[in-house]
């Protein structure tokens, strides 16, 4: 077999956006991919069932599908534009412009994910850092309600635990301490060995308070059974950290979302004694990009409605509330809400006009009134994206697609409505 020269690629399999992937291409097809994890490999090879242009579930040409989409959105009084975490920033910006043109609501998957954390980081209330800093400097890392070994497979090997960094030359065993706080012994917890702290579901807030007590030299109190000595030991490890990082997973975010200020209090208490940053474990490759792009345009990171008096934001404009009561037409770009939202909420998508823009056929395409296929971001379509730590990354396409990009689809819809 003749050897092909590999292309260096940035993987869009998750928000870690690994930039060292080598892809071998032959005849415009991926032949081999090196260094990507299994998830990245699945991403680069693409889905088995690609989407086709449809109106009312019958195949049509793409122009008719786009026209039909424009008509639905124009007619709607309260359209919702949703998805966006699997799109390049360029497509997201186009989506935000379309929302403005339509006077629509726009929201992303971050609405029920890491948005709340990203917001506090962007407004400076929670200190954060880059993954490069983690690699070069971090000596104590905490995976809290997070299991990167299952969600972001190269997290530990590329940045947070195993690599040798500028200040961490002797390897992970001597130079770094990895801690895991979770409700089950996850794959990540297994690697943290004795530094795994098993807490009951919903026990995060109490554990956080106990840890603050420990830091301040008070005896921690907990309503659930937990060896207080271990909390004091953990507090001592945190105090000694030169450069500590907390990776906040959804387990933590969901558990304390009702008293989210506690994280702020915890970080400031921790930083009276030590030096800690926090990085949210955003999942989809450009979830954080949507927050940055919308913020630039409106001052809000998600859940926005464009009104005559300008953009407003609030829980009533969240995808969940809009689907429950509000939206009378929905455009979904790069997401599968019927699979990823509670069915009790997503079911309503079957009753309102629904347009889906996606490279792949998914559950939602089965009920969509209009489906418009687009090129896969990072495979057929290039652009930029924002990594989970906030760093902007370039994404270049690796194969030539024959369809439109999601950005082009959105722009074509915009041309037809305005």
């Amino acid at each position: 077999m003749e050897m092909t020269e590999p292309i260096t690629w940035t993987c869009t399999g998750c928000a870690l956006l690994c930039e060292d992937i080598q892809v071998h291409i032959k005849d415009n097809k991926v032949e081999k991919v090196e260094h990507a994890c299994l998830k990245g490999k699945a991403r680069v090879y693409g889905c088995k069932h690609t989407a086709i242009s449809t109106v009312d579930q019958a195949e049509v040409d793409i122009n008719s599908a786009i026209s039909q989409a424009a008509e639905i959105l124009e007619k709607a009084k309260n359209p919702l534009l949703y998805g966006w975490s699997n799109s390049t920033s360029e497509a997201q910006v186009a989506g935000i412009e379309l929302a403005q043109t339509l006077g629509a609501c726009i929201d992303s998957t971050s609405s029920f994910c890491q948005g709340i954390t990203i917001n506090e980081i962007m407004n400076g209330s929670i200190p954060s850092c880059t993954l490069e800093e983690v690699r070069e400097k971090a000596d104590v890392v905490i995976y809290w309600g997070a299991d990167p070994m299952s969600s972001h497979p190269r997290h530990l090997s590329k940045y947070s635990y195993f690599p040798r960094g500028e200040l961490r030359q002797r390897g992970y065993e001597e130079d770094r301490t990895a801690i895991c706080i979770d409700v089950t012994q996850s794959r990540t917890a297994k690697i943290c060995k004795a530094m795994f702290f098993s807490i009951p579901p919903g026990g995060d807030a109490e554990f956080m308070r106990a840890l603050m007590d420990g830091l301040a030299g008070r005896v921690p109190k907990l309503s659930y059974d937990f060896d207080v000595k271990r909390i004091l030991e953990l507090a001592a490890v945190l105090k000694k950290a030169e450069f500590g990082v907390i990776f906040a997973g959804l387990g933590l975010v969901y558990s304390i979302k009702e008293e989210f200020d506690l994280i702020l209090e915890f970080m400031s208490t921790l930083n009276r004694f030590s030096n800690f940053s926090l990085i949210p474990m955003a999942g989809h490759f450009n979830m954080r990009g949507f927050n940055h792009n919308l913020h630039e345009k409106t001052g809000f990171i998600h859940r926005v409605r464009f009104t005559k008096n300008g953009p407003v934001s609030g829980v009533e404009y969240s995808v969940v509330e809009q689907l429950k009561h509000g939206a009378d037409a929905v455009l979904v770009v790069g997401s599968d809400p019927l699979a990823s939202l509670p069915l009790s909420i997503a079911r309503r998508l079957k009753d309102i006009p629904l347009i889906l823009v996606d490279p792949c056929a998914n559950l939602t395409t089965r009920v969509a009134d209009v489906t418009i296929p687009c090129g896969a971001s990072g495979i057929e379509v290039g652009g930029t994206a924002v990594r989970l730590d906030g760093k902007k990354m370039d994404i270049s396409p690796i194969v030539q697609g024959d369809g439109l990009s999601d950005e082009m689809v959105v722009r074509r819809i915009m041309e037809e409505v305005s």
Partner: protein
Amino acid sequence: MALDVGKFIKAPEYDIKIITHRDVFQASACEEDRFGDECQEMSALIVLDAAEMKRMGIQDRANVRLTSNWGSVVVRARASPREEQKGMGFMVNSPWVNTLVSDETTDGIPAFKDIEAKITISKNGITGIQELLLL
């Protein structure tokens, strides 16, 4: 009319709290083929503490029905290789577990990771992906 007693003897039901998580193998299988058998096998699955399963009379690999106030699905039960906290079940994020999640939210964030449900042995087959769409 003869009374069909068996009809009234229901398999016992147990309360369970379901925690969702991610899995790289399932995510990869579903990215490749959302409608494939592999995606379904790795998604329509609940992992329980082995001793708890024994107590509930559920055998490893048995089909179980999970029911919450919002929906009901049949999935496969598997014993966890390690000891788990009592009364808990673990499921990978997927449309199957999402059928059980409440629509009640005050902050726009559904209770994805904190699902109260009942579990019982089921003679039915695992709910297929096409059936989920009809629920």
